[in-house]
């Protein structure tokens, strides 16, 4: 399979222009701004990886294993360590809030902190 075909089949990424150095006909290096296929491949892989992780999180929430906070955290490409730093809580506390039964009892003030950190409204934060 040609490199070109591989990237077309691997990724549905539109051609975002990024600079890369390539020698021209005379062997002199110039900055070319056509998207390069390896970059497109890896970008496509990463995008699909993130999507899969968000989908997995959504399923876990719908199945009642995790609180909606887990989904919103995945959506913002965060993990518990980053989220804990952003809201200014301990990782232990954030992990506890990922349990649905504990999340449902949270005070509005705590929810507000999460909503602010994840840039969603409080209503959105409670749903997926």
């Amino acid at each position, binding site marked *: 399979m040609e490199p070109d075909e591989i*990237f077309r089949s691997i990724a549905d990424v539109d051609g975002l222009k*990024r*600079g890369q150095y390539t020698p021209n006909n005379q062997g002199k*290096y*110039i*900055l070319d701004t056509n998207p390069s296929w390896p*970059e497109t491949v890896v970008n496509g*892989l990463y995008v699909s990886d993130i999507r899969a992780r968000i989908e997995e999180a959504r399923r876990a929430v719908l199945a009642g294993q995790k609180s909606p906070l887990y989904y919103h955290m995945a959506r913002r*490409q965060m993990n518990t360590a980053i989220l804990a730093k952003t809201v200014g809580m301990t990782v232990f506390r954030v992990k506890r809030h990922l349990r649905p039964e504990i999340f449902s009892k949270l005070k509005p003030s705590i929810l507000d902190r999460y909503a602010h950190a994840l840039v969603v409204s409080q209503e959105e934060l409670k749903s997926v």
Partner: protein
Amino acid sequence: MTTELITKETLANGRTYIHRTSAHCETGVTSALFRDKGLDISEPMIFGIGSGIFFGHLPFIKQTGLPVSTFRSIPGLVFKKAAKRLGVKVFRKRFRNQQKGMDELRRVIRTGQIVAVTTNIYWLSFFPRRYRFNFSGHNFIVLYENENGFRISDPALLEYTTDCSTHDMERARFARGPMEARGLMYYPLSVNPDHDIRKACITGMKDSCKQMLKIPIPLFGVKGMRYLAKKVIKWPDKLGYVEACRQLAHILRLQEEMGTGGAGFRFMYAAFLQEAAELFGSEELAELSQEMTAIGDIWREFAVVSARIIKQRGQSEETFAKVGGLMLICAGREEQLFKDLDKVARKLKA
């Protein structure tokens, strides 16, 4: 095929800023900052003088749970080294307090000085959503303030200047997580008028050779490449096929994405060697530049073979042994190249 796309902007004090597209954010930003101060220097030149080329495998630093392999020196180091070697005085500051960080930025751009800021790419909404990854360490230049927030020039990602809202700017500059920028902003204060670009080039080359060959830890430089290559060969047995593919994809991502200018900065370094060859009139440097291009092509082949493996999940005839073998070839040739470069750089006269 386009060489350079240029957009012009007028700054707060009436001066003109020229936006040029570049391959990598840090070198592109540094080049733009120096050009603004009247030191006309290209992006590969900055990359070479700042000794940006490197290799390191860092199994103890994880990004989305996967070990990091880097093809460049630590973020921020290229700017520091290039500034020092070209005699540029710089201002560089992080902030504990968000408000102070934003106030200082506003104060400086009001004087007409352009400022580079380090941001988390996830929060930059001027950029297509699908390309926004949680990665703190993207640099761009703030030009002036306007009704939408800030006018910015992002040499690595965009071909034109654009607006960035105040909210985005605050979130992106002060995002928490690994490699926090903590509102880092930097700009050159003054340029030494009688800087010696030839001397800077020689220092940069020698330093690169030292980084690639002489670090006595087997994770860095050419030794790091060999270490990683041997690990790659063992991955399918050790981790299972699916996990091995994930890890390989991560190496590929660090090599080709993150604005490397192609083949993990190898093409950018070849461009630097070519420019240096013209500067010194040295035939040897021109040959080394061609050798670097050839090495870059092998890295590209490594990427092609890896992509095939990842795509076809076991049905392809390509193996992890072949991928590791290609990496070992790169290691061998780069070792020879940097040994030669060291000899050549010592002979050059400033």
